[in-house]
């Protein structure tokens, strides 16, 4: 049955080559922990992606309850945390996932750096990877404000003060992020929009480029 459905689609869309592009390749020995245990360092990138997927899924569920306005934001998070079935788990996964993704990405960056994997011809993939790093930090910064509790609010105040210290563009960046002079209602909706639409959009594009390049170029050889 499945085979028939596959054939039906394949006859119209010719999907076999796409499938082969994605999954049909060999994994060399030097990155396979089954052959060399030390090759576990090559798992960090995959785990970063794994946590990213969890972040996207848990974030989607969080938005089913979260309300991005200063009157209701805190109440909705409190409700989510204390009343909603498994809400504490979903929010907990999103909270800890944010830290794990940073840790895993940091380790992945170090692995790529110390194996010299960013050298020709893989320079562009390194640049895209560092951009992903920045986007992730941006996601962490904007997501921190959303519960609208004390530490969220004052961490954002400090963060925006630091942004303001930048010469020339500082004031502009601050107003752009805060949505005005006051850190308040506008800031929360802006951070929500950045956290849920702008940065994830950029992230998915960059991840696509990252994976396309690694498939195109293959993984770097052993040292």
């Amino acid at each position, binding site marked *: 049955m499945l085979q028939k459905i596959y054939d039906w689609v394949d006859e119209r869309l010719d999907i076999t080559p796409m499938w082969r592009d994605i999954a049909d390749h*060999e994994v060399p020995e030097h990155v396979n922990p089954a052959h060399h245990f030390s090759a576990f360092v090559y798992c960090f990138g995959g785990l970063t992606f794994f946590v990213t997927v969890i972040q996207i899924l848990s974030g989607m569920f969080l938005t089913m309850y979260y309300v991005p306005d200063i009157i209701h934001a805190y109440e909705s998070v409190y409700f989510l945390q204390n009343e909603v079935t498994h809400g504490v788990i979903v929010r*907990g996964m999103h*909270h800890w996932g944010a830290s794990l993704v940073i840790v895993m990405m940091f380790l992945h960056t170090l692995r790529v750096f110390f194996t010299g994997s960013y050298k020709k011809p893989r*320079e562009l993939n390194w640049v895209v990877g560092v951009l992903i790093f920045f986007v992730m930090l941006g996601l962490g910064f904007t997501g921190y404000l959303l519960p609208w509790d*004390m530490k969220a609010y004052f961490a954002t105040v400090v963060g925006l003060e630091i942004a303001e210290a930048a010469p020339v563009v500082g004031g502009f960046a601050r107003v752009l992020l805060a949505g005005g002079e006051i850190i308040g209602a506008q800031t929360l909706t802006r951070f929500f929009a950045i956290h849920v639409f702008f940065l994830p959009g950029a992230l998915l594009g960059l991840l696509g480029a990252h994976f396309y390049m690694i498939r195109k170029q293959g993984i770097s050889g052993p040292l």
Partner: protein
Amino acid sequence: MHRGKGMKFVGDSRIPAKEHRMKNIPKDYSEYPGKTEAFWPNFLLREWMVGAVFLIGYLCLTVAHPAPLERVADPTDSGYIPLPDWYFLFLYQLLKYEFAAGQYTVIGAVVMPGIAFGALLLAPWLDNGPERRPIKRPIASSIMLLAVISIIFLTWESVAEHDWEAAAQQGAIVEDIEVDETSEAFEIWSMQQSCINCHGGDMLGGAAGPSVFQSDYTKEQVIAIIKEGAPGMPPDQFEGTEEELETLAAFIANDGQVPDEDEE
């Protein structure tokens, strides 16, 4: 390559036969002799197992430590000591040093992180030799090691300097306390000018003291604190009879309500 099932599309606007298309042959790793393994399904299964173990640890963490939530944001509370998420601590800590704070803030906030992240972004061109082993490119490796050590050090310093107890207290969710202002005990409170000066006329905290209901003390503990004082609070400020003191202490221990007789 014969594409697909050789079907013809009516009014086909696609780019015709891509003869120059890269052939779909797996990368050749024969120059690195060894045992390669098919990604699908063999290697993916192993990755899946690593992912499952990782997920179990992740879920244990989530269950053991629920995500924190402090009280609702109060922009007027200027005494709050802010703290960013832990992975920004090293940047935050940098701004506390003299050479990167005050009139030099721009150095700590922009110049130093800018150089560090800029160098990270441009690493392939800064370190463009053919050597890949870290030991064969000592400059790049030692700069990276130095950067990692600095990040760990700054984060460590920031954690060590932060007053975690005060932080937990300043953000704690305060229970809604309704003080029974018609009670005898509240009348006794109203006559204690010394108490009111710090803890406020409504008992919920004032200029120099917190709400009297902040900690969950028993009646006996409340009496002891009033008589003997506490850090930042002088002893023996109560003016009245021993009986009045007991009434007030019971009222405080019972979160602002007159306790039921049988509870005694």
